[in-house]
């Protein structure tokens, strides 16, 4: 099935008085196939200790993201409370924006459709890149793999998981292990994620699964988490 967006556009003209009028554009992506359904970049100024999910202030539409930019911005649901006030940028599937000239609205609509068309690969299907992911142990990279082809890691190691292509709508899970996210969720900077392996009670087998939910692509990395057995202090003679 080819890539597509199912979009609803609503344009409303509001005339409060003869010299106070504007056009409102609402665009909603109802569903998408193989592409992220949240390509609209919005920004809000959120006060400290306010949960973005419960935030009801002004949401400013910034622009529509290309596929290659999707992974740099978190969806709204992934943003947690911050202790300090800040501008928070996030992706959604819908936005509403006001325009004081129809031409401005037309330009916005035209550019949105152009970017969405680019994301579906309508211009150049050969440019659609397949979803790929890679994992790198940036703390300790020399352990290699065990006999079952599992990547060996120590508890406490730091992992960089990078991905490219696909829709950019990526989630990462690791069954039975709560990976410690080292990046603030509201300030992602590239198509990569940084995690630390938590302390485990004993040697653990698991899989790090990187999923592009919109492209139905999954990349799995079997891992073997090692727990060192020499913690504590020992006194010995070195001969």
């Amino acid at each position, binding site marked *: 099935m080819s890539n597509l967006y199912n979009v609803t556009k609503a344009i409303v003209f509001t005339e409060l008085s003869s010299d106070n009028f504007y056009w409102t554009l609402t665009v909603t992506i109802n569903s998408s196939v193989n592409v992220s359904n949240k390509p609209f970049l919005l920004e809000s*100024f959120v006060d400290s200790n306010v949960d973005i999910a419960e935030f009801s202030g002004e949401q400013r539409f910034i*622009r529509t993201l290309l596929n290659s930019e999707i992974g740099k911005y978190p969806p709204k649901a992934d943003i947690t409370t911050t202790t*300090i006030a*800040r501008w928070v940028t996030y992706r959604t599937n819908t936005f509403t924006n006001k325009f004081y000239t129809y031409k401005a609205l037309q330009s916005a609509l035209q550019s949105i459709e152009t970017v969405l068309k680019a994301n579906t690969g309508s211009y150049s299907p050969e440019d659609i890149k397949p979803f790929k992911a890679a994992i790198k142990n940036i703390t300790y990279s020399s352990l290699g793999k065990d006999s079952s082809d599992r990547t060996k890691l120590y508890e406490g190691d730091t992992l960089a998981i990078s991905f490219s292509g696909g829709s950019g709508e990526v989630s990462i899970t690791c069954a039975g292990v709560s990976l410690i996210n080292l990046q603030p969720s509201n300030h992602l900077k590239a198509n990569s994620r940084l995690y630390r392996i938590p302390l485990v009670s004993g040697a653990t087998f698991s899989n790090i699964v990187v999923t592009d939910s919109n492209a139905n692509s999954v990349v799995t990395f079997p891992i073997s988490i090692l727990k060192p057995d020499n913690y504590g202090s020992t006194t010995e003679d070195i001969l």
Partner: protein
Amino acid sequence: MSTTKPVYVTQARGGVADTASVTGVAYQVRTVVHKNNAYTGDNQDKDYLLNLFVYSIVDSSDAAQDTFDHYATIADLDLIPTARDQAVTRGLSQYRDNVNLVKFDNLSVATTAAQVIRDTLNNVVSTYLKVKSEFTGSSTHYFPYNVEIATLRTEYIEAYTTARDARALAEQSQDISQNSYDSLQKDNTTLADSKTKICELYEYTSKLQTLSSVVSSKYKETLKGLVQEFREDTDDYNAAYNAAMTALEDYIDDSSNYVFDSNWANTITATNAGSGLSLLGLIIQTNALAQTYCSNYGNLVAASDLNKSAALEDLNEKQASKEAAATIEQDALATLSVYCPNLDPATL
């Protein structure tokens, strides 16, 4: 002599006496365009490009009143005649000539003008030759075009990519301001918390200080009361003894005899005071320190508040700039997609 350039100019520059000038001297630039006889291109170019100065006719019967109007444009070369009498006959108010004389009051302007005249003539001549070269020939065109017009395409792509890069820069700029604001907020929170606690401590020690003063005066009053009571109960004692008691009361009243100073500011040591007085002194000194710290932290918090406000203002400006840049990018992309409907913006 060049064989590829149809005309050349000679320019005479110098100072001349001029009664109309404030200083009595004017700086004159006389420019004459000549045909280049060595030119091997189209022979007509030499004649066509010879008269590049456009003059306005003030009085058709008096050529001396003619004034220089402007340098010829490409269109002027076709529309304005080169002979004055021909222009008069046709009822026109302008004609072209190959000689130009201009005067200036100061040397600086004259020097610049001499260069401007040469550059302007060079521009007219080179533009004409380029236009002529591109125009000459024949071609066949089928419509509609199957590719976008190259020049417009390049122009709109550049407009979009420039706007996109400007927006990316604005995003970076906002990030820097956000980091700065984050840092100031953390500082401000720490300072405000410290100030609240130290000032709370100050409030408590102030209450202790009040009690300390009461306690110290009570010490004195109690001691004096005991002496007075002792005197009242001992009327049989002699005058010398009464005088001694009075002296004792005076000694107690004289604050200079106390081991601590009146402000309780100096350290009480074990050698000159008891532990009770030392405790009182320390409480009062603690209060003074807490007051100073509370005041200092008040100033720090006030300065931090100002810095934080300024940083937020800067951040909001950067956010607004980014939003404006995003709108410009959006407009540029809209224009690009209208004129180049088959161009993928993701590939730019």
